[in-house]
């Protein structure tokens, strides 16, 4: 795939089960394209530096910080954003455990937790800690977030 560096090109990406056409620069990040062209604003612009995790989406089931991925890299992959999750166990758990305050970091955390629970339904404490360290919450809902993912793991 060659993109003209001085212009834009149209590509098709698979997002939340739908094939969507977007017009991108090669330098556009996936985060920007999701938010500005597809209206999927669940992934947030936090630090745009790969630190906070508020932009986390799933790429082929693995959590990826979408600010650290070029949109053009999405070709041939399956992207899932928070908008693509509907009444999943982890979303119910976040509500049950009051695992958010302002909600800004919540989509990113839910994507990480959903992937963790899907790929490692018997995840250990250590693994949960390792995965959760990828995201930051400034309202400090960490204990509640941990309780939410632990409750999902326990049920599985």
């Amino acid at each position, binding site marked *: *795939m*060659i*993109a*003209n*560096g*001085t*212009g834009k090109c149209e590509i098709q990406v698979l997002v939340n089960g739908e094939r969507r056409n977007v017009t991108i*620069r*090669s*330098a*556009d*990040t996936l985060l*920007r394209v999701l938010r500005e062209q597809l209206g999927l604003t669940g992934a947030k612009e936090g630090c*745009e*530096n*790969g630190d906070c*995790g508020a932009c*986390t989406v799933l790429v082929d089931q*693995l*959590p*990826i*910080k979408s*600010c*650290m*991925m*070029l949109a*053009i*890299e999405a070709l041939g992959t399956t992207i899932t954003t928070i908008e693509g999750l509907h009444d999943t166990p982890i979303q119910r758990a976040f509500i049950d455990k009051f695992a958010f305050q302002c909600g800004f970091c919540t989509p990113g955390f839910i994507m*990480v937790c959903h992937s963790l629970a899907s790929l490692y339904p018997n995840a250990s404490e250590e693994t949960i800690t*390792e*995965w959760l*360290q*990828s*995201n930051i919450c400034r309202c400090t809902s960490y204990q509640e977030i941990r309780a939410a993912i632990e409750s999902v793991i326990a049920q599985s």
Partner: protein
Amino acid sequence: MIAFDFEYYKPATIAEAVRLFSQADADGKEPLYYGGGTEIISIARLDQLHTGAVIDIKGIPECNRLEFQNNQLVVGAAITLTHLETSGLFPLLGETVRDTADHTNRNKITVGGNLCGKFIYREALLPFLLADSQVVLANEKGIRRISIHQVFNGEPRLEKGDLLLQILTDSRYIQLPFATIKKTKLEKIDYPIVRVAGLKTNEGVRTAFSGVSVIPFRSLQIEDLLNNSSVSLEQRIENVISSWPVPILSDIFASEQYRKFVLHNTLSDIMTAFERVSV
């Protein structure tokens, strides 16, 4: 956002990648090979890097291999740190990369990007230095295989246009007793102020370092001092620190004195642990 435009290519073969690089270079585009892209994206966003073309290596089959072949572990440059860790194929390497960046970022960071990047830490390099690995490089002149020490011990010394394809490691080093300790200023997810990786062989303990100086490295002189059993361990460590071959960093993470203090304790921990282990 990245404020400048660049071309993006994703070749399917080594030859195509090298050709694209050469052409882009001839056109004055200052091309870069692109693995996980985390470093390129984050530095480009800050306008501290400019390129007219990136060549994504993730489509090249040779760069995606992770397997044993002929008693060697083949690690493709496009293999992510998460994949390295979860494979369990090289325990020292897996443990070392396990606390490099955070888990989500490790899903994107590649071993090739970590070795060839501009960040000074390059922690994934240390196990390969200890195991005397070889690197497979490609450029316009062809493919060559050389010792990792020739190109990556210290400052990277790749030739322009060199594409890192794979790192090859003799399997006899892979199951040896090892230790890898990372000390950060405060947070678990942070750059190291001291990272020491060690490997115990029949000839003695090998050590490699990151975060202490501006380059990650392995030094035979340091190993001779550490393995000199005619001297007490305490004195050996003092000798190592006083003979440190490159300036010790002093920055916002830690002063030189503090790094020496942490290095001393880390070496003590590692050597003490190795004394209880036989090869």
